[in-house]
């Protein structure tokens, strides 16, 4: 049974690249363009990992993490945040909210897949 990963990022190109990389590695992928979009797409289906950008319109990544932690069906789902080096305060906030895995942007596909596979093997 293929593992399912949700990628939340306002940049369509990042969603595209991440999506291709993940699908290539054998994961199923659900895309969302911001926190709000992500929450509407979390409809009870099994998701093994949520990858989310930090800075997004409508609902940012940190808020999304806090919201996910309120959802019975997703509160224990591992979350990986995509961040830039500078956003260390965000990182602390995100970790406090429960997102333990962080990946620094920019990254290349192999790095992403390596990081993802530490949490969920395909």
């Amino acid at each position, binding site marked *: 049974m293929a593992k399912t990963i949700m990628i939340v990022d306002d940049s369509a190109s990042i969603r595209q690249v991440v999506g291709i990389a993940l699908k290539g590695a054998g994961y199923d992928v659900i895309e969302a363009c911001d926190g709000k979009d992500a929450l509407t797409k979390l409809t009870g289906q099994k998701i093994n990992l949520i990858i989310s950008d930090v800075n997004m319109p409508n609902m940012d990544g940190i808020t999304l993490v806090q919201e996910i932690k309120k959802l019975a069906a997703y509160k224990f789902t591992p979350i990986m945040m995509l961040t830039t080096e500078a956003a260390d305060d965000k990182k602390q906030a995100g970790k406090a909210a429960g997102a333990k895995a962080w990946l620094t942007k920019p990254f290349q596909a192999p790095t992403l897949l390596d990081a993802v*596979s530490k949490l969920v093997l395909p």
Partner: protein
Amino acid sequence: MNELDTALAIFAQEAEELLADMEDALLSLDQDPDNSETVNSLFRAMHTIKGSSGLFGFEPIVAFTHEAETLLDKVRQGERAIDSNLIAVLLESKDHVAKLIEHCLNANGPALPAELAATGLRLISQLNGGVQTAIQQGTGSADEKIFSEGGGEISVDEHWLISLEFKQDSFRDGIDPLSFLRYLKTLGDIKQILTAANGMPSGEAMDPESCYLHFKIAFQSEATKETIERVFEFAADDCEIKILPPNAKIGEYLALLDAQDETQVRRIGDMLVQVGALTEHDVEHALQAQTASVESQTVDGAKPKPLGEILVEQHVVQQPLIDQALKKQEQTKQKIASEANYIRVDATKLGHLINLVGELVISSAAMNLIVEKHGLSDASDIAAGMNALVNSIRDTALELRMVQIGDTFSRFRRVVHDVSKELNKDIQLLISGGETELDKTVVEKIQDPLTHLIRNALDHGIEHPEQRLAAGKPAQGTVQLNAYHESGHIVIQIADDGAGLNSEKILEKALANGLVKKDHGLSRREIYNLIFAAGLSTKDQATSLSGRGVGMDVVKKNIEALRGSVEIDSEEGQGTTISIRLPLTLAIIDGFMVGTASERYIIPLSMVDECIEMSANECEIDEIQHYINLRGRVLPYLRLGDYFGNTTANANQRESVVVVKFGQTEAGLVVDELHGEHQTVIKPLGKVFERLKGITGATVLGDGTVALILDVQGLIQAAIDHKPKALAHKPALRRV
């Protein structure tokens, strides 16, 4: 003894008794394996020790005895059969518990030494699986055993030892230990894994969403420690991760440590991180532990525990690595300490400083003069004090420019190597006295003459191996460079064990060149020194390297330009020794001031042997034979006033003799006045005066007048030569 100590003492005693009973029980079980009472007593021993250890927070004992207890419970329930193998393991376990107790009672931290931990791990695996495997499958293949948690021992020699203690929030944070373990498997082989739920409460208290899982993993992989650690990077907040490199890796790390550069002292942690034995995370973690331990020990300012000790306790690195790193650190420290004593300074700055010090010396002399002249007794003490300070400043300033001659010597290794190859000779260079110091400016100027002399020794001195063997000498020739200090000078010697000089040949040539007359009356030594005369080369055939008849005279001239001298001594067939004497510095000398008529002269103090009044009993002057009889010592002499053509008008002036010495030669200088010691800043004479005989330089005196610095060597020669120009009309002095 406080209450806790008392309790601990009781615990230790109780445990000791229980373990002793356990041993007896185990031994009797060997005879009577079905005695359920004996098994019960074994179970109770482990159970009791586990319980009381828990009270004291001795986690390692609790963890281990728990395993033993569990097994013994199974035996008690009849789930496991007891056999001699199991008894052996239990006996070893009993010993292990004793060691654990000892450790917990004596050590500060709960962390176990690697060795103890490894033993524990192995015993646990044997208690848990090994025996059961034997029961279920008999003796399977090695692979099967490992796969089934069985008898495969955890080998810390070849395997990484990874310890993972997940925190309770792990699951809630989306951290599943299983993911990391699966990923770990992509980097290598999990050879053995022990899964434990240490401290998992029973019944209601257990929260299934909390993580109680701990793992100990024997991992075989070529990956670096860093890579292995990165497997768990996302768990870093939720897990205590300890990675102990395989013992087999220690050798590799040690070699890397050894190869680390020693240009800067680094922290132990950084050193071990660089070789890969530790990761940044390990160090950070240990540092936190260190800080925490300091904070918790608020009493009597206890010293923080050394980081190395903490790292070993945390099972992230082995003791030998820490030891080696500490050793290396110490070495580096020492090396740097010796290097840190040096500051690179621009030579021109130093030159400027020394010039200023020179001026200061002159000013100080001027001040003394004024103080004396006006009889300022109040000021004389102060002046004397300042004088002493100026003296030490001068000495120190000059020392700044002192360098060891060793580096210069070492450069000749290459010359000797190349030249001997070119000449098909086998020559070794021996260096001694390399630590001898002299002024850097002198060092620079001596380089060329030295090169020439060494090439000469290689070319003319050392014979070809066949010749040497024929002469009964070792085939390998030796050129020796030596340096030492002697009365304000540095003496550099170039000695070879070659053929030596042929005095006949030199004399023959010198006669042919008209350098000497037939009835020369020269000593052997003087004949040898003829080779420094222009146009004399004794080598029958000039080689490309030396011996074109130019050279030795140039060498001599260069050395004399440094106010030095060169001498040669040789033993035919045995070798030649050339000695170069040079002043230590070119800038300032301690001088001895003398006067004739109104002129004043400076004699370098180091060359002054003694001063005597001419009228004294022990000194007689023979004007006809032109010598001084000084206590039976016969000395050639020179009247300075006559030599420099400023004969004193006052014939009644009481004369004094200054006995000067240069190397092996000496002479008396007859002067009118002795002015005493004088710090002399040498001011070189201009080109115009370059050819002036008997004078090497000048100095400015305190009152602004100029005094000439005497060329002692030249004057001695003039005295010996008994035909000083100014005295040409006088009867010639015969050598005595």
